């Protein structure tokens, strides 16, 4: 399930769309919010590490 809208605590989420969003979802990071095509992923250590690995600075 995905909640339509944006999280109120945006700083705790990583926003992605398009291929990156699909890539993160494939890697097991399930989006919690969806707004206008952008997916918001709960920013935890696992996600941070993965993002770092693929060269995305959070």
């Amino acid at each position, binding site marked *: *399930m*995905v909640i*339509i809208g944006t999280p109120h605590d945006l700083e705790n989420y990583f926003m992605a*769309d398009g291929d990156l*969003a699909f890539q993160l979802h494939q890697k097991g990071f399930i989006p919690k919010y*969806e707004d*206008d*095509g*952008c997916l918001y992923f*709960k920013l935890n250590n696992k996600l941070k590490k993965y993002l770092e690995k693929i060269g995305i600075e959070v």
Partner: protein
Amino acid sequence: MKLPLQKNISFALEDVEEIPDWADVYPENKFTVAKCCFLSTRENSHGLEISEKVLRECASSILGNFLVAKISWGDATTHVDSESIYGYFPMEQDIQFVEDEDGILKAYAYAVISKRYSKEFNGIFEYQNLRDSSVEMTITCEDDNEDVVTSFDIYGLTCLGKTVNGSCPDADIKLVRFEEKMAEKYFKKHDILSTLKEFVEERKQQMAEKRYKIDKSKESMSTKPWGDVDKTDLRNKIMEASNKSELVKACYMLVEDGWEDAPSEHLKYPVMCFEGDKLVYNRYGLSSALAYAKQENETSVINKIKAIYKKLDIDDDSERKEEKDMAEIEFSAVNIGDLWGKLYTAMRDLRHWEYSIKGIYEQDNQKFAVVYDDDMKLYRLNFSLTEEGLSLSDEIIEVKEEFIETDNMKKFAEPENVSDYRKENKEDDEDSDSDDKDEDEEEDKQVEEMSISELQEKISKLEKDVEDRDNIIMKNNEELETLREFKKGIDEQEKAKVVNSLMEEVEKFLDPEMMKSLRDEGMKCELCDMDAWSNKVKAMSFSAISKSKKKNSDIWSFSAPISNQKEKKSNSVWDRI
């Protein structure tokens, strides 16, 4: 977390789903039906707590909404803005709640999916009839606990790809009604391409079924001019008919093997034409065929046609006369001079004054002249030549290009007096002839009038003229000689200049003996050969330079070890000490 591979299903009897009755309003040939578990009370990855009560209360919000997906590379992906609607959750149904052995309550709804417009979506289930799903919804939570959902409103259900999992572990989709064969049958029947193919097949069949009658009676015999009968169209019509074998035998007097593959080559001597849907004998077709058969000495054809004559009770004498009169005189039998003359006369008779004949041709037994007017524009004028005479076509057609002889287009030779039939040439010739004649007459007259003394005077005058002319020539010869001498001197100077200049340049590379030999050679050359000599000198100089460089390199190789030793100098302080 479930793995997609674990969801592989086998179509065992127990998997057969009962389709709800309301689904009957969505015909099987148009719709597939998918059973979707869209939410459950099981713990989800977001940690949202959906109680049994909330689920039962709000699950029906999915009805009237859509089944969506973003399909890429043959599979669904995830929630993206470019998702497309593929299915719909009909309002007619009630949400099914199923409690499993763990006490988890699952909510199910059926979606109907168009077979025609959602082929892409249905296609992804062909390989594996199960996908995760994920609802898109708005939620309200408890004020003091955001993880406890108090209500939700579903906007749609997204079908996820095989490589992604939904938040709710139980949420999935599988097709429960999709009979491929039926759908294919339906689409085949209604597909535009199929319709066109069917149309083509039907037409082919209709064409193949087309039969023509043959009427061999004298009463039905056609008397329309044989030239007006389109022989190609006749052949095509016959070949398309279902009773073509019968038609061919009746229409063509000579039917060779392989006529079905190459009818134009193997069907000869047509004698019939179409009158509506009937194939009837043509009076002039018979005459023409007989005439040609006689020319070609085709006995079997002649006999056949004569038998037809007998059967139709056609007067043989009149036929013979007509045959003789009507038959087009063949190419080889035409008298060239006669042809040009007849054509020229016929053109004048029809007041075609403005045209001249450029050439006469024959194509497919049709003779025609290429004529031109004063503006040199070309025209084609058809005519026919029989024993009766030459008759011109009423029409003169302008043509853009001259005709070139081919296998089926022959050009008649031009007679010796061809200029007589060409307006301008004729006039020109006439003019020139008359001029010559006038001159001759005048001379004769003058000669007669001249006396002997006058003639002597004229001869002496002419002799003097000749002498003067010789003198002039002699004088010119002398002048020419002087000029040649002068030119030779200039050339020598020029040559010496070139030789000296070049020899100065190459002096340092060549030894004196070679220099002398080359200089002499250069001076003996003509001025026009100086370039070649110059190249030779330069080449020899280059050769001499190369040799000289080689010698230098030997010297350098001798000094090289000294420099190498320097390079190999050790960097070690101890070594240097």
